[in-house]
């Protein structure tokens, strides 16, 4: 009897603390500063750890710091120059030199493969999962690491799971309740309140610290918001600061329940799987949505897949054909505190969330950027590239022309055909062959 009473008391105290310190402030969008203190302690600890590691390791390991910098000297001259070029010259036996050199260069180093695995850290952040190259340095460091493990798994994880659970249930219940109301401005205000509160709770469940820059450019109603994609958490991060209409497929299970509940309170655009294939239908529905200036801005991730937050890959042109004003947003995570990248081929959703909840924190910067519209004589692809460059520059990411779909599929043959075309033009020239 006593054991049960004690357990009951602990549980109720625990819940009251959580309610008081975390849930209530979330409703009002106020922060009590607990996370800030946690972050300060964390930063100091990691700095100390870095200094100790640098003292401990020999100079050789500085070698691997340039993992993201090119390791071979590249000659980026176009095919004509590389083939010692006068145009319209004939085939030579030595032409094969150029192609083999380019091929071997790609084997030694290519820009794409490295973007689909997590970024390597310059110095260890006391998480086992990032322990790529750090050997045993000292007893004190190991003790701190053990302490870190205990704190993360025994203190932070239960807290975070509780918060996530509360956040999601509140979202589903809240939106269903609000959905019962007739359409009115009260309904919109309430639905915004519910959305924002639950998102804030969920962000705290990940110990998220987000800095928003240039809030004056926050996406307005009737516009389209585009951002670079690193993980499903991107959605959470953006919706904490404003409400968006989301676009996506209808899922089953828990996601499906959440989606159905959310759409009752506020018009999101969910598609059935079969509808997604029909691009015209998708474009039509999105056009209808933004035509209504009272509806919330649409949130789209044009890359189509998760990239590891060191670069921005090709933006699919579909989102840029709808018209309307595009509000670009750049999201950059700080990998020192936790790696937010979702490697969907390696981890499923549940293990990904567990990894998130056992990291130190999720720290990121969000930059809102001035709105852009398609200019005269610019087609969708050029416009997409312009927006992509702007986001890459703002977020400090490199820009790549490759399609994120390369993660799963092989390269399209059309790209190879282009190279073949270029070469053929050279050796066959103006149709005359000697």
């Amino acid at each position, binding site marked *: 009897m006593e054991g049960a009473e004690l357990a009951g008391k602990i549980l109720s105290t625990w819940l009251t603390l959580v309610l008081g310190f975390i849930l209530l402030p979330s409703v009002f969008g106020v922060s009590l500063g607990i996370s800030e203190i946690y972050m300060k302690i964390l930063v100091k600890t990691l700095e100390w750890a870095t200094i100790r590691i640098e003292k401990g390791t020999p100079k050789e390991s500085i*070698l*691997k710091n340039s*993992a993201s910098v*090119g*390791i*071979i*000297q590249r000659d980026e001259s176009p095919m004509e120059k590389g083939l010692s070029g006068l145009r319209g010259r*004939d*085939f*030579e*036996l*030595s*032409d*094969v*030199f*150029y*192609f*083999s*050199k*380019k*091929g*071997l*260069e*790609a*084997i*030694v*180093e*290519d*820009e*794409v*493969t*490295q973007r689909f*695995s*997590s*970024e*390597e850290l310059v110095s260890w952040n006391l998480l086992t*999962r*990032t322990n*790529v*190259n750090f050997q045993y340095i000292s007893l004190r460091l190991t003790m701190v690491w053990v302490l870190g493990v205990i704190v993360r798994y025994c203190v932070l994880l239960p807290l975070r799971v509780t918060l996530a659970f509360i956040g999601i249930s509140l979202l589903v219940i809240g939106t269903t309740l609000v959905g019962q109301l007739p359409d009115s401005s009260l309904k919109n205000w309430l639905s915004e309140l519910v959305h924002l509160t639950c998102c804030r709770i969920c962000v705290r469940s990940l110990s998220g610290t987000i800095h928003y820059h240039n809030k004056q450019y926050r996406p307005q109603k009737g516009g389209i918001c585009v951002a670079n994609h690193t993980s499903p958490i991107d959605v959470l991060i953006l919706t904490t600061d404003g409400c968006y209409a989301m676009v996506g497929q209808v899922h089953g299970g828990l996601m499906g329940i959440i989606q159905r509940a959310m759409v009752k309170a506020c018009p999101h655009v969910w598609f059935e799987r079969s509808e997604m294939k029909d691009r015209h239908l998708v474009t039509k529905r999105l056009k209808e949505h933004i035509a209504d200036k009272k509806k919330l801005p649409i949130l789209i991730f044009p890359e189509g897949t998760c990239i590891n937050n060191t670069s921005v890959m090709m933006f699919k042109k579909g989102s840029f054909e709808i018209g309307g004003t595009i509000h670009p947003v750049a999201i950059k995570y700080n990998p020192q505190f936790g790696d937010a990248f979702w490697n969907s081929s*390696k981890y499923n959703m549940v293990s990904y969330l567990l990894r998130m909840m056992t990291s130190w924190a999720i720290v990121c910067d969000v930059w809102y950027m001035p709105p852009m519209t398609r200019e005269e004589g610019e087609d969708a692809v050029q416009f997409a590239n312009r927006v992509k460059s702007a986001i890459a520059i703002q977020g400090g990411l490199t820009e790549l022309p*490759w399609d994120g779909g*390369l993660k799963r599929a*092989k*390269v399209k043959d059309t*790209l*190879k*055909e*282009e*190279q*073949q*075309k270029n*070469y*053929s*033009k050279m*050796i*066959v020239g103006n149709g005359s*062959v*000697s």
Partner: protein
Amino acid sequence: MGSRSSHAAVIPDADSIRRETGFSQASLLRLHHRFRALDRNKKGYLSRMDLQQIGALAVNPLGDRIIESFFPDGSQQVDFPGFVRVLAHFRPVEDEDTETQDPKKPEPLNSRRNKLHYAFQLYDLDRDGKISRHEMLQVLRLMVGVQVTEEQLENIADRTVQEADEDGDGAVSFVEFTKSLEKMDVEQKMSIRILK
């Protein structure tokens, strides 16, 4: 998670590989890092599919021939020493290589002759030591895709074989190949410099 970088102790036979290929310790470490990054399933060797996943290689018109060069003698796997052996052909020729030419040691993999031999076997599909007209046609077809007619291609192949063929056997042997390219700056065109 990111791929693991490696210590010298982790690379098996590091010393013998270094002697055979001439790569510095630092370059060898980088290449080992890259080998492990390409080996997605951590098998310890690379298959053709691992190399085909490289986007920039898959769009290369000679991509398939280059991938084949890693699998001599019909094997299906290439381990790290085999991987480095092919890459060693593209090591830039440094002064130290030409000066200390010990007649007892085998020719370094990045000598002019070996570079030319690498290019030769990109053409020599059946590895019989000769590039026949038929093989020339097939490789040309790889490089131009569907952009050139069969007739034009045959003309180019005939002309090329005739120009290089000296003993009139209708095929280009390695010696003839070398002779026709004697003025070409092979060392510079077939070299990839790994930055320190």
